Structure formats: structure tokens, C-alpha cells
């Protein structure tokens, strides 16, 4: 039955959907470039010809690029992980990459290094993410099955979160603690092109690793044994996805903080449209993730005057209603 349903979606559905999402992403990027925020609330345009160039290239362009790149990363990795673990609850945060990155960044904050150079913060995040991956690999290398990986990921998450809280307890100033807390909810405010340049060289190899696993992910839907009998090595697929995710998501979290919900919700939104081949979900999920985060970041700037809302709050606010809708719609089928 599901096989038939999947068959009804030929691979061209993937490209049609991707084209549509691509157009949406371009529209969102365009809107993101012309919508700003001043003390008086949202502002359309650049506020004067003398400021236009600098506002566009130094403030809104990095912000827009990062929204697309980070959203795309979360969507892509969420789709790949849900395919790999054959579990609809999988998301990039599950492997400990996000919490590891957050911990690395918080440590940089704790030692007051963040002020010295704004790139220290993301660099700490990347180091934390790679550290979490190294621990995951050490824990799961021998057994290597999915269950071990998920359990190890949960353990790493809990441990990194505990270490983060510990660092908060020792924060040198109550204001530092407050800033850390905000940072962990994610934000794109005032990032510069230097942050794009820091994250992109790690994100691109991460994406490529995940994409290289596409065929293996399709084979894995038939079960590990069947996949192996088709001449595909499930272990290879597994480490491609996990390594790629840690790299790309680690770089993303390191620059923007933890942005929740995107990796979880985006693949679910699209699965009904492209069928159940994980490989066909990858590109649409990348694009939809980019659109979701770009729209969330635009929504932040459209709020009435006040301090900026955090990105993680808005992605959850935007994503959760879609999720409710999917659950309600799926109920008769499941029952």
C-alpha cells in the first residue's frame, strides 16, 4: 500500500516541489533584505541613500544568508537523520551536536573570550560540536547500531546540557549568565559576513557528506539486511549522515545559537508530497528549512518596538501549529 503510494510520486514531484520552494526562498531572501528594524519597529527600505550600501551588505545580507544556510542545514540534516534512524522524532539536536556546540560557545563566554574577538564564540561552538561527535563515535564505534547511537546521543546531550548549566553557575557576572541564556535560544541579530565565512566552509562539506548518503538511505528503508544484500554498507551511510550533520549543524549552532524545531518539523511537512524515499526529501527539506528560518527572522523584525525576539522562539511558534495540523490530519490513518 505504502509502496504504491510512494510509487505514485515519481521523482519529478521532488523537482517540482524544490522549484517551488526555491522560488519561495528567493522571495523570502528578497523580503529579508528590504525589511529592517529600528527603535520605532519595522522599517521597509534602507533609511536613506547614504546608508543603503552599508545596511544592505554589512547588516542585512549576512543575516539573510545565515538564515538560509542555517535553515537549510537544519532541514537537510533533519530529513537525513529521520531517514537514517527510521524514526520520525529524529532531529539534529539528537546527536548532541547542537548541545555540544552550545556548550563550546558558553565556555568561550565564561572565560570572557567572546569580547576579544566575535569569531571566538563560533569557533568555540564548532570545537564543542566536533568534540560531541568524537565522544559519540567513541561510544558507538564498536556496536555501531542505531539504538546505541541514539542512546549515546541522548547521553551526550544531557551531559553537555549539564556542563552548560554548570558553567552558568560559575559565570563571572549575572549579566553574562543572562546573555548565555539568550544565546541558547538562537538569534541572527548583527551577525557579519565574517560569520558566514566561518560557517560556510564547515557547512558545505557537511552537506556533501549527507548528500553522499542519499542512495544508502533509500536502501535502508528496506531494512539493514536487505540493504547489505544490495551491496550497500549501512555503516558507511550511517557515519556519512552523522559526520555530515555534526559538521554542518555544529557550524550553524556555533554562529546562531540553538534554533529548535526546524529539523524536526520540516521533513514531516514535505514527506506527504515526495513519497517515502528519504533521498527525495533531502533537497526539498533543505529549501523548506531555509524558507522557514528566513520567514521566522523576518517575523522578528516585523514585531512592534522592543528588544528582538529570539529566533528559536519564533521557529517553534511558526513550526508547532503545522505540526499540530499534521498530527490531527494523520490520526484516522494511524488508528
Amino acid at each position: 500500500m505504502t509502496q504504491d503510494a510512494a510509487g505514485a510520486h515519481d521523482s519529478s514531484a521532488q523537482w517540482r516541489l524544490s522549484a517551488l520552494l526555491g522560488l519561495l526562498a528567493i522571495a523570502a531572501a528578497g523580503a529579508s533584505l528590504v525589511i529592517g528594524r529600528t527603535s520605532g519597529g519595522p522599517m521597509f527600505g534602507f533609511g536613506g541613500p547614504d546608508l543603503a550600501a552599508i545596511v544592505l551588505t554589512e547588516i542585512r545580507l549576512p543575516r539573510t544568508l545565515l538564515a538560509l544556510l542555517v535553515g537549510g542545514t537544519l532541514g537537510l540534516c533533519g530529513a537525513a537523520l529521520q531517514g537514517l534512524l527510521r524514526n520520525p522524532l529524529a532531529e539534529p539536536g539528537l546527536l548532541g551536536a547542537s548541545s555540544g556546540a552550545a556548550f563550546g560557545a558558553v565556555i568561550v563566554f565564561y572565560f570572557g573570550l567572546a569580547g576579544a574577538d566575535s569569531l571566538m564564540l563560533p569557533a568555540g561552538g564548532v570545537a564543542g560540536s566536533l568534540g560531541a561527535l568524537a565522544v559519540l563515535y567513541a561510544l558507538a564505534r564498536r556496536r555501531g547500531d542505531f539504538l546505541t547511537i541514539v542512546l549515546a546521543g541522548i547521553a551526550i546531550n544531557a551531559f553537555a546540557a549539564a556542563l552548560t548549566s554548570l558553567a552558568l553557575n560559575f559565570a563571572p557576572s549575572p549579566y553574562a549568565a543572562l546573555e548565555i541564556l539568550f544565546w541558547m535560544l538562537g538569534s541572527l541579530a548583527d551577525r557579519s559576513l565574517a560569520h558566514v565565512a566561518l560557517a560556510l566552509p564547515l557547512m558545505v562539506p557537511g552537506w556533501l557528506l549527507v548528500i553522499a548518503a542519499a542512495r544508502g538511505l533509500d536502501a535502508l528503508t528496506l531494512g539493514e539486511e536487505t540493504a547489505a544484500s544490495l551491496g550497500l554498507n549501512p555503516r558507511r551511510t550511517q557515519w556519512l549522515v552523522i559526520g555530515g550533520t555534526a559538521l554542518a549543524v555544529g557550524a550553524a549552532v556555533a554562529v546562531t545559537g540553538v534554533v529548535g524545531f526546524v529539523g524536526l518539523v520540516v521533513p514531516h511537512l514535505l514527506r506527504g508530497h515526495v513519497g517515502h524515499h528519504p533521498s527525495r526529501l533531502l533537497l526539498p527539506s533543505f529549501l523548506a528549512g531555509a524558507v522557514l528560518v528566513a520567514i521566522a527572522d523576518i517575523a522578528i523584525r516585523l514585531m512592534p518596538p522592543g528588544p528582538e525576539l529570539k529566533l528559536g522562539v519564533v521557529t517553534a511558534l511558526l513550526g508547532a501549529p503545522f505540526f499540530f495540523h499534521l498530527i490531527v490530519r494523520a490520526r484516522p490513518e494511524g488508528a
Partner: protein
Amino acid sequence: MPSSISPPLLVLLAVGACQGAFAGPLPSVASINLCADQLVLTVAAPEQVLTVSWLAADPEESLLAAQAAKYPLNYGSAEELLRFHPDVVIAGAYTNAFTRALLVRLGYEVVALEPEDSVADIARNLRRVAQAIGRRERGEALVAELDAHARRIAARRLERAPATVVVRPGGFTVGEHSLADELMKLAGVRNVAAEQGLDRWGSLSMETLLASRPELVVLTGYRASQPSLANAVLAHPALRLLRESQQTAIVPGPYWDCGLPQSLDSAERLQQAARR
């Protein structure tokens, strides 16, 4: 010899001398952190200030709310600040890390102030702000005033130091190496939490508080009218009983949250409460 100087050269010399005395207009300044705002409002000439952060105009947060409300308020984003085009941006060392970096990248002079954990830190930050915005004399005058104020408080130090605990919202208290602790020492009260080895700041359980048998309880409120778990601590029945039997001083949060010349007034409050 003087007669050989031609009139145009004389004019030039005169202009040069004037520029030496008044080195052009004062640099304009924007501030994006509550503590920096209040220091800027204290040190700067009124016409120098372009904008301060929104918290500075909130009387629950700021001692200079009325003064701050005269200026446009910012929420600390780079895009807002570009529109003010300040010569100098004053910020806090622990806040707006990304914004500060971006402003530096765009060529602005950004001064990041470390938190004030002592009276000496207040003097240091007054001087740093004064230096950055061309008000060195005003800065030195404020520091001299600050030192004199500290000496006046020390001269009236309490003869017998009462055991004192500070209860902040959320059950927090202050330990050694904090501004509040130094002001308590200056006033002549014993900070029980610091004697127990607490460093900077930390939480205080109701039981530890009672066991320390304080003679003076210092409450620092924060948005007392707005319900929060943090404020519920201040309404704990045990604390209420203690307040009935012991001396109480109330120090509003802004006196200790940022290090300002006015912070020293809190030491006088402690002395008054203990002498009551």
C-alpha cells in the same frame, strides 16, 4: 622680530591657539547597555548624547530614568546605531557581543566596559567613559567626588558591625569581590555570606539565611509589583518573621546592579538602618 610676522600668519596662529583650547566639538556618543547608559548620562555633556538603551529610561532599572527619557532610545542593534552615526559607542563587556563586533567592523570606536565590582571599578569606568568622549576633566571631578563620598561614609562607619544578609530576588545574595560587599564593608556591616566564603554572587537557602542569625536584613527589590518566582522568595514566611524581629534595610536593585556614583548612597542607607 614680531614685526616680521605678517598679519595672515598672525590670524593662523590665533586660530591654532583657539583650537588648542577648545579641540573642536565634543564627540557624539551612543550607549547600548544599561550600566554604560547611566555612566554616559553622568559624564557626558547633554548635547553629546545621541541615544541610550531602552532600559535606561525604565525607573525600575535605572537611577537616571528621567534624564534618559529625554533621548531617543535604542534596543542595541547595529542597524539602529548606524542611523545615529555616533563617534563613540559605549557598551558592556558581556552584552551585545555580536553587535559590538559588527560596529568595530564598520569602523566605529566601541568602548566595552567591564562590570563594576568595586568602588575602584566605578572610578575606572568613569575615567574610561570620560576619556572616550573627551570629558576628562568632568571624569576626574566625578572620581574626586566619589572618593570624597567614600571617605565620608568610612568616617561614619558603624562602631559595632551587625551580622547582615542581603536577600535579592530569586534567593540570590552577594559575596566577596562584589560591589555590594565592598559597600557593606565601607558602611561597617558584616556580610555573613562573604564570611562563609561566597565569591561574587550566589544563592542563599532560607535555612542558611536563618542559621546565620542576621541582625540586619537587606532586601533589594526588583519589579515588586510584577509577580515572579524570584519575588516569591522575598515573601517567604520565614523571611517575614525575621523582618519583624530584626532591622531591615531596603536597597533598590539599580543601586547595586550597576556601579555608579549613586551606588554609594546604599552604604548610607545601611548605616541609617543599623542605627535605627
